[in-house]
């Protein structure tokens, strides 16, 4: 059978299940509206470590541990680890690999890394001899700030479109064995560059990429937005989600109450001073691994489309005046 188009959704022929998830977040995320839905909330950003890079590695390590503990698996059961983070050379994920000693594939799709890992991991479980796989993504506010923007104590006024990088890690254990959530289909994103160039406005820059992936997923799975209990985008935030709705409307796609956004859900902008909302690979990872997975497991939702979005720029490219290419990866999940 000829493939319809290489860029359309992949339906997973063999059952792939999420057995368990683990979410570990920083204090600010713990104080947010979703605070009680996370497995662990750190009392501080990790000041006991000699660097915040080390703190982020521990955050990720704990997310792995929590997810494994809940699954009943040991590290020795895990065939493959897939994950990524925001730091240069994906050091958080790679350095954490020193501890778990399992085969590791480091991934990068900025804030879309979690669904990249989840989608790719599911395809491998479905179509290879990998049986049990763990996927993850992490970020830390303080390590991201120093890499992408400025030193912490430097006075700086954030515009209303600025996002707040989350201190958070999320992990999920995937298996051929039945679990409470099934991964049904995956649509990987294309790089879409609509010409945004402001690193303080990633939400609107990512909206066209989110739209493209959602549109292609719906078209190739022959579903409509109302077939889903929830369609949750990555880190579009307030501004980006508004832009997405406009793009959708112009193409005849109507979103209802099912459309939400991880970056928007994570914080309370009125009291937490987070402007456009949360961002960072850990944002969609922890929001899925905590509250969203809970809702699927409890049966509140039957079907979820998770669409993490990533802005694929680096400090070098924006200093050179380049525009910001963006990507979004979608994973369709159903409650079992």
């Amino acid at each position, binding site marked *: 059978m000829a493939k319809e188009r290489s860029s359309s959704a992949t339906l997973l022929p063999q059952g792939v299940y999420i057995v368990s998830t683990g979410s570990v977040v920083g204090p600010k995320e713990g104080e947010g509206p979703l605070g009680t839905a996370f497995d662990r909330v750190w009392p501080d950003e990790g000041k006991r470590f000699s660097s915040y890079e080390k703190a982020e590695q521990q955050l990720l390590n704990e997310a792995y541990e929590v997810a494994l503990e809940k699954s009943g698996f040991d590290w020795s059961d895990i065939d493959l680890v897939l994950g990524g983070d925001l730091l240069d050379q994906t050091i958080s994920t790679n350095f954490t690999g020193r501890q778990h000693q399992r085969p590791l594939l480091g991934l990068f799709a900025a804030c879309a890394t979690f669904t990249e890992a989840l989608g790719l991991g599911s395809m491998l479980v479905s179509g290879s001899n990998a049986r049990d796989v763990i996927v993850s993504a992490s970020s830390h506010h303080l390590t991201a700030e120093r890499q992408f923007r400025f030193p*912490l104590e430097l*006075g700086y006024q954030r515009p*209303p479109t600025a996002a707040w990088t989350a201190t958070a890690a999320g992990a999920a254990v995937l298996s051929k064995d039945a679990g409470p959530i099934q991964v049904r289909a995956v649509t990987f994103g294309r790089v879409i560059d609509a010409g945004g160039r402001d690193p303080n406005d990633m939400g609107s820059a990512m909206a066209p990429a989110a739209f493209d992936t959602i549109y292609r997923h719906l078209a190739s799975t022959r579903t409509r937005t109302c077939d889903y209990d929830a369609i949750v985008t990555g880190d579009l935030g307030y501004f980006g989600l508004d832009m997405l709705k406009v793009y959708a409307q112009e193409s005849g796609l109507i979103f209802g109450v099912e459309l939400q956004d991880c970056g928007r859900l994570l914080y309370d902008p009125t009291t937490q001073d987070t402007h456009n909302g949360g961002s960072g690979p850990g944002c969609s990872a922890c929001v899925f691994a905590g509250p969203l997975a809970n809702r699927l497991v409890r049966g509140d939702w039957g079907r979820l489309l998770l669409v993490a979005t990533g802005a694929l720029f680096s400090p070098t490219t924006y200093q050179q005046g380049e525009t910001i290419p963006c990507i979004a990866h979608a994973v369709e999940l159903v409650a079992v």
Partner: protein
Amino acid sequence: MGLQQTRYQQLSKEKMPKRPVLRNLLWAFMIGGAICLAGQFVQLFFMHQGMSVKEAASPTTVVMVGIGAVLTGAGLYDRLVKRAGMGGTLPITGFANAMVAPAMEFRAEGLIMGVGARLFTVAGPVLAYGMAAAFVVSAVRYLVTGVA
């Protein structure tokens, strides 16, 4: 520019949340003014010690830089600027903040390539272009008038 880019520019411009410009200006005025007022007090203090206006300039700057450095170290200056914007950045205390903050931040990368090299990451451009502009302006004046 493609159709997609044009549409994005239009849409993002239209939907972009507005910056609270008026509130920013008010805060910039109040905090910026207050810092300069503090500077005036310090300068007057040194003049009371018998210095001329000119002589008092350097010690005043040193004290103001010290205030900026201490507030930065205590983690207060970034909070001040969040409200005050350029009201906190433009005065010399903001210059101190721009040098002290990276020095603190990159301590983890060592004293040489961390603290030593990064001290000037933010303040460097100000010094470089300040010196260059002062040189050019003075050189032109010297060539034209004979005194710099």
